[in-house]
């Protein structure tokens, strides 16, 4: 084929498209291709430089971010002002989802570790979708609830494990005394 024509008809490769990225996320794994297209118009793609702040602890939070490329560090500040790293996230991970449905302050800060592309999904977009397209919105919320409850379960298991650990320690201490 003529190189000019092949250039005109060239599409973005399937793997580079936003729709492909979204469909690969566990959050949106149950959406149909048509719903993914609608979601594509709902999210915001933002590029960040190296070491750029995404949000600070205490900021008004209104949505979640998914990492398309690059990496993000989640940290909080202790009372002395020193930073404590909580997590390091890479492509495909998401963060800030707790503020998606209810307005709340950010409970930790997020900063990029390299040039990063984030895909944001915000409460106002979700509310608009709930009005215009309730079916898609309910699918989105189902996915979100599933992932959140998985995380909550993991956290409560971890909590129980720690409780047991503390209980064992304290019982061994009483035995010693």
């Amino acid at each position, binding site marked *: 084929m003529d190189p000019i024509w092949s250039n005109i008809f060239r599409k973005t490769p399937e793997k580079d498209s936003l729709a492909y990225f979204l469909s690969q996320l566990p959050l949106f794994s149950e959406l149909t291709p048509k719903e993914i297209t609608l979601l594509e118009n709902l999210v*915001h793609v*933002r590029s*960040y430089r190296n070491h*750029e*702040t*995404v*949000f600070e602890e*205490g*900021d*008004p*939070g*209104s*949505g979640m971010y998914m990492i398309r490329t690059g990496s993000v560090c989640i940290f909080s500040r202790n009372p002395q002002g020193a930073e404590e790293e909580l997590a390091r996230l890479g492509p495909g991970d998401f963060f800030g989802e707790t503020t998606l449905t209810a*307005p709340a*302050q950010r409970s930790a800060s997020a900063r990029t570790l390299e040039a990063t592309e984030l895909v*944001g999904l*915000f*409460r*106002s977009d979700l*509310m*608009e979708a709930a*009005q*215009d397209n309730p079916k898609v919105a309910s699918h989105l919320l189902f996915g979100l609830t599933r992932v959140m409850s998985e995380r909550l379960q993991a956290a409560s298991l971890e909590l129980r494990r720690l409780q047991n650990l503390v209980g064992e320690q304290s019982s061994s201490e009483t035995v010693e005394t």
Partner: protein
Amino acid sequence: MTDIISSRRGWTRGQVLLAFLVLTAAIACGLAIFSSATTLTSLSRTAFSALFMPLLLALVLSFLLQPLVYYVEKLAIGRTVSIFIVYLVVGGGGLVALLWLSPNWESLWTNLGADLPRYAAKFTGYMQEIIGALHDRFPQIESYELASKIQQWTQRVLSATLAHTPGSALKVGGLMILVPLFTFFFLRDGRKILRAAVAMSPNRQFEMIHDLSYLISRQLAQFIRGRILEAFIVGLVIGLGLSLTDIRYAPVLGLFAGVTNLIPYIGPIIGMVPGILIAFVDFGMGGQFWWTVILYVLIAQVLIDNFILIPILISRVSNLHPLLVFFAIIVGGKLYGVVGMIIGVPIVSIIQMTILEVRTYRRTFRLPESALESDRSP
């Protein structure tokens, strides 16, 4: 000697000359920038003044039609087709309503043109009678020629209105084409335009601006829909109520009362003046006159507007201070004439609403923080 002076002052003649030149150049540059800036602003003003009205009307219309378009779109039709369907339905409905309301619309209009001078003449006649009565009681104000002044004034207003009619007809024709066109694009791409505008904000502020833009546009849509619906119902009530009397211009007067009802405080008063005046001139102080007064003041304003419509439609938006309303009307009238008077108040309310929304947003997120601090302090 000159050396001593220059050394004492620390300036040589060359330096003084240089300073003089620099200052002159600076002043000239300042003047040039100032004048070019004013010509630029005036140029842009003339360029955008033609766009201002159609854009504003299109924005209002798109806010009004948006729910309809979304409703049609939900029936699984494309956005563009839904807009055309809504246009057809609304345009057809409006035409039918117009024909049904007044089959002899054209003759009504020509009658009004003939009757207006008659009403003005009758009114001045009444004024002259009143002034005559006043003269009998207070002879000292005899020298003041109020009657002739009123006559001159009414004649001047009438002739100005007539002279402006062709020009405004041309403008209205332009609006008839531009407004539906702009509305179409606002309805189709409004969200995309807003998203593109919000996307230009820096990363750090993006989240807040995005959230605020959503809150404000939702609030704005509610406000505009509420106001227009309120004006429409008030106009309808007055039009229907007046059609019970022998007044010939019930639809026109209802329309006028509805449009002026968009201006808070002053609008309803302006809206009731022509109706009450015509009733007074045509019927005298009879039962029909008093029915007209009661209709305008008690039924339309107190009962319908204050007790039913405002609590239901516009409860969330706080009203403007009366002083601000006057400022808005005067500034709007100075900038854009009669149209400016009508749109001045809504624009100021929109600005106020934006400020209020930003404040509530900030307060929502500041409260827990201050609570945290008060927890920490003891």
